[in-house]
């Protein structure tokens, strides 16, 4: 059976190559950073929690003391790119489509045909595993078709990962922070605060506090999944459903979406907000969030209205 461990080995191999190429380039900080990350991918499952924790601290120390720099491996010039683009035409899009098509079509095929009885992929992990398969296929196709040197994808990948830098592991690190918050009981404390902020007797204001709590707690945690159980247990279920007799389906579904509005507003949702800013080489780390504020706030207000109308006015 193919499990995530296979993907970790693949990623570990890429990070190792990036580390070696950084070393050749005398960028020791980058070499150490990608090397430690490679160790985490190769060995993480066999190390103790403490050892993994020390790897985390080492990564943070390198990034925190400015050990990472951008690399500029020899790449084709803009003129070359225009030339290639004209020569290769729209066929250039095809290898780019291999990865999403493999992931999506593969998942559908695997789940809705007898293929899933083969147990080829670990349960509920098939999409990410097929994504990995797609990457390998796309890489082979592109390298054969474009007749590139073997080092080309490694150099190009390193150029991109170095431009992302420490932001590449921020989402993973934030997930770890979420685990520590949960261990420390932060959710229960927030739930208590939200509950004490509720004005007696007003359904509409209770809906507002619920939706606001979802958005704000999502901004703190970086994703709505951590906020939802807390806000549902503090306000959604005891007050909106039980005391005020609202429609549970609307309160649950739209409450979650009010949280998603918070996701648009926070640097803690790094893979949606901070990583793209790095990928697009924006001057402002919060540039993507700035473009989302004007959408998130009116949309949040819409969610309040939808809960109030759908769960109470229409339901009764």
């Amino acid at each position, binding site marked *: 059976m193919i499990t995530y461990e296979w993907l970790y080995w693949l990623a570990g191999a890429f990070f190792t190559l990036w580390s070696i190429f950084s070393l050749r380039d005398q960028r020791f900080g980058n070499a150490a950073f990608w090397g430690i990350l490679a160790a985490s991918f190769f060995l993480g499952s066999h190390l103790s929690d403490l050892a993994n924790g020390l790897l985390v601290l080492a990564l943070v120390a390198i990034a925190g003391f400015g050990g990472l720099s951008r690399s500029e491996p020899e790449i084709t010039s803009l003129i070359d790119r225009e030339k290639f683009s004209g020569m290769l035409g729209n066929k250039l899009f095809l290898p780019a489509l291999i990865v999403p098509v493999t992931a999506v079509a593969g998942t559908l095929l695997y789940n809705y045909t007898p293929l899933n009885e083969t147990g080829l992929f670990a349960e509920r992990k098939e999409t990410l595993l097929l994504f990995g398969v797609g990457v390998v296929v796309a890489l082979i196709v592109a390298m054969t078709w474009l007749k590139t040197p073997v080092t080309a994808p490694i150099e190009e990948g390193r150029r991109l990962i170095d431009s992302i830098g420490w932001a590449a592991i921020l989402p993973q690190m934030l997930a770890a922070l979420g685990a520590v918050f949960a*261990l420390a009981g932060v959710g229960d404390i927030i739930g208590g605060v939200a509950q004490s902020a509720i004005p007696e007797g007003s359904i509409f204001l209770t809906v507002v506090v619920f939706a606001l709590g979802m958005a704000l707690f999502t901004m703190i945690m970086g994703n709505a999944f951590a906020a939802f159980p807390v806000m549902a247990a503090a306000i959604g279920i005891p007050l909106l459903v039980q005391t005020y007799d609202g429609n549970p389906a609307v309160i649950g579904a739209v409450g979650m979406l009010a949280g998603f509005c918070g996701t648009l507003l926070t640097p803690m949702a790094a893979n949606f907000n901070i990583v793209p800013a790095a990928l697009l080489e924006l001057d402002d780390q919060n540039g993507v969030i700035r473009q989302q504020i004007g959408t998130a706030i009116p949309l949040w207000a819409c969610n309040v209205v939808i809960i109030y109308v759908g769960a109470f006015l229409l339901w009764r």
Partner: protein
Amino acid sequence: MEYLPLLGIVMVVVGFAMRFNPLFVVVAAAVATGLLAGLDLGAVIEALGKAFNDNRFISVTWIILPVIGLLERHGLQQRARALIESVRGATMGKLLMLYLLFRQITAALGMKDIGGHPQAVRPLVAPMAEAAAEKSHGELPRSERQKVLAMSAATDNVGLFFGEDIFFAIASILLIQGVFESSGYPLTPLELSVWAIPTAICAFFIHSWRITALDRSLAQVRSSSEAEGPA
């Protein structure tokens, strides 16, 4: 005293605002939160290490970078621009609205892995949006160009977030179902996912209006810079 662990949250907010290295801020906040909640330092480091290790699948997605980089080396971004330049009547507003709709619909059908920042936005959507904007408004000043790129990323996020919950077999819907079921309210995923539709429609109209507003503001930037004479 019971509110002390919230100090970790304050550290995160202040640290991000002061532009300290975010990795550094996150670990400092984790350690502070754990210590204030009465854990010892070793236990906090172990918790961090375990959670970081369990979440490696998040960072696995970077394995796509060699593919994207290789295609960019052969002019993928230039090709994306050329494609848009060849479409008559293409504007940034129309392009991003179309992408928003496409992203919402595919996500609603469970295909949330079509799109995304490294795979689609950087190599395709952002260069196309930039080319379309330059086609209607001429060369853009740096700050305006960055707004167009950022809006492309924002459009991917909005389309994904407010499309995916219409698909019933998705983690967030299953989480809602689980939370309500454990409190004695059994709901079906379909009951929940239909209630994602009104918000999805609002999201489409609100964000489309924002995209159009950006397109209009770019036109104003050009006309005002023309009034000042050639720069």
